[in-house]
């Protein structure tokens, strides 16, 4: 259900970087921990993008798997369920090295071809 809020935040970010130019693609990187439902985000993005330079832009979503690292024994793993204790030593000091991202990676813009005026 947070996809509407995220779609609005993605749209605002894209529009700020587009500077009024027409946007054809918005690429988003979302960590697995953010629990973004791709189809839901795309659906809401199309709604909030109406009547803006992002209207009908394609939302490309790349999901980043969660990666954890134990600070105590340096074990690294990708949990399939939200368990944040080290499976090797049981330690609670665990760093999340990937999976929390929620960023606009790039946007693609439509631009007029540069017109070359021949001298003379």
């Amino acid at each position, binding site marked *: *259900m*947070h996809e*509407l*809020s*995220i779609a609005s*935040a*993605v749209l*605002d*970010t*894209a529009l*700020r*970087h*587009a500077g009024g130019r027409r946007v*054809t*693609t918005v690429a*988003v990187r979302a960590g697995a*921990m*953010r*629990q973004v439902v791709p189809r839901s985000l795309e659906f809401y993005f199309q709604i909030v993008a109406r009547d803006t330079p992002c209207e009908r832009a394609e939302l490309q979503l790349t999901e980043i798997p969660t990666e954890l690292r134990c600070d105590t024994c340096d074990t690294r793993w990708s949990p399939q*369920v*939200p*368990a*944040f*204790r080290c499976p090797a030593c049981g330690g*609670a000091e665990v760093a999340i090295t990937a999976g929390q991202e*929620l*960023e*606009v*990676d*790039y*946007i*693609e*813009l*439509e*631009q*007029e*071809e540069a017109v070359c005026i021949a001298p003379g």
Partner: protein
Amino acid sequence: MHRTRVRVVEDALDANNTIARANRADFDREDVVVLNLMSAPGAGKTSLLEATLAAPLPGGGPRVGVLEGDVQGSLDADRLADRHVPVVQLNTAGGFGGECHLDANMVRSAIDQLPLSEIELLVIENVGNLVCPAEFRVGEDARAMVCSVTEGEDKPLKYPLMFRACELVVINKIDLLPHLDFDLDLLLHHLDAVNPHARRMLTSARTGEGIEELREWLSTLAARAPAVL
């Protein structure tokens, strides 16, 4: 026409976080510590506030103000009206059917109404929801949540973002335990897996059990030095 790619690499919530930092600067200037209190609808946030604010907090009685976030209406603010604490109601309705969470900009719009010079602790009661509020910082120093025993033991596994975001998890409605098929140990086990660092508290806003511990925690929080946001 041709296409140009523009590299952005920016957190989608950057704009919100920037406003949250501005809120924090305003709170810090007035020496007000801010708690963002979250839960599912009906977990007992307002009941717990009614119980904890029935008397001045221990430890010299830091003064408390409450910012009530709701989609609509002032029912919660009305309930707190006789607790002799300043309460400001913030409604998120309007726009897309009413936002399901508070964001930094909404809180910013209410700052002028808050008597910051008269309080040491501001409790922001977020909209009841275990999903979106975890995403949006509002300028708080600490985040806490209420999880009631009627919600089921699996909630930390279903809403890890929320359960990881909070430094305190208040497990409320424990007076109902004898009447429920609820495995408290299993909930605590799941909570430990998702957020081993969270402090836990068992409370009943109805009977008053655990309320003094929560009052002590709020009092200690009010004396906390500002954290870096």
